[in-house]
C-alpha cells in the first residue's frame, strides 16, 4: 500500500526524490502520511482537492481488495 502511494505521488510531482510516505498503524485503520516538496503540493492536491481525492479513491480500492481500512493524509 505504501508503495502504491509512492508510485502515484512520484508520477505526479516534479521532485520525485522528495516524496515520502510514512505509515502509522492504528487499531482499526492504517494512516499514510504523504509528504512532498513544498512546490509540489499543488500537483498532489489539485484544484479543490481533485487530485488528492483521486489518489484516495485508488488507494481505497486497493485497500478494499485486502480488507483493510486506510487513510491518506497529505502533510
Amino acid at each position: 500500500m505504501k508503495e502504491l502511494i509512492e508510485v502515484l505521488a512520484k508520477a505526479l510531482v516534479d521532485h520525485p526524490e522528495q516524496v515520502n510516505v510514512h505509515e502509522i498503524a492504528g487499531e482499526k485503520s492504517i494512516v499514510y502520511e504523504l509528504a512532498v516538496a513544498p512546490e509540489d503540493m499543488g500537483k498532489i492536491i489539485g484544484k479543490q482537492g481533485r487530485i488528492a481525492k483521486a489518489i484516495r479513491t485508488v488507494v481505497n480500492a486497493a485497500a478494499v481488495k485486502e480488507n483493510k481500512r486506510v487513510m491518506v493524509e497529505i502533510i
Partner: protein
Amino acid sequence: MKFVESTGKSVEEALRLSLIELGVSRDAVDYEVIEEGAKGFLGFGAKDTKIRVFIKENAVDKAVQFLSKVLNEMNIEASITAEMNEDSLSIAMEGEDMAILIGKRGQTLDSLQYLISLVVNKDKEEYIRVSLDTENYRMKRKETLENLASKLAYKVKKSRKNVVLEPMNPYERRIIHSALQNNPYVSTKSEGDEPYRKVVIYYDYKKSKVSNS
C-alpha cells in the same frame, strides 16, 4: 522536457550529431533551429547552425508504464491495451478483479483515468484526452444513463415537476443533456458546483406549446 543543443555546418549535420549523442532514432525527436548558420564567403563570416533537439515522449508508453505499475502495487493482474488516435488515448484493461477497478458508479475507474491523464499531460503543451475502460463499462454506463434519462423525462412530462439527478461528472452529465436534447416536452440544465454538480430535468412550457400547436 529533456533536450540537447548541438551545432553543425547544416541542420542535417547538427541533427545527426545530436542523435548520436542521445542514442535515439530520427523519429523519436523533434528539433528547433536556434541559430541559422551562414556559409560565409571564402571562409569569412561562416557560422554554424545551432539546433535544440527534444526527445519526444511517447504518451502510450508513459500511460501503460504508469498504469501497470499502479495495478502491480494494487495486486491486480490485468492486461493493458492502449491505442492513440490523433489527440486522444484509449486504454482498456482486461483481467480479474475488474469490479474493484471500476468502483461505485465508476469512481475508481474515473480516478485512475484522471491520474493517467495528469501523468500523460505533465510538462506537455498539447493536451491528450485519456479514456480508460474495462469490460465495456463506459458503453454500458452510457446506456444506463440514457434509459434513466428517458424514464425521468416521462415522469417530468406527467407531473410537470422538476427532477434533480444525483451528482455526476461532466462526462455523464453530457450524456443526460444530449439524450434529452430533442425531447419535445422537457429541457435539462446543470446546477450546483463541482464535484456536486447535478442535472435538473424540468418541464419546458415554451417547448411544449410549440409541440402542441
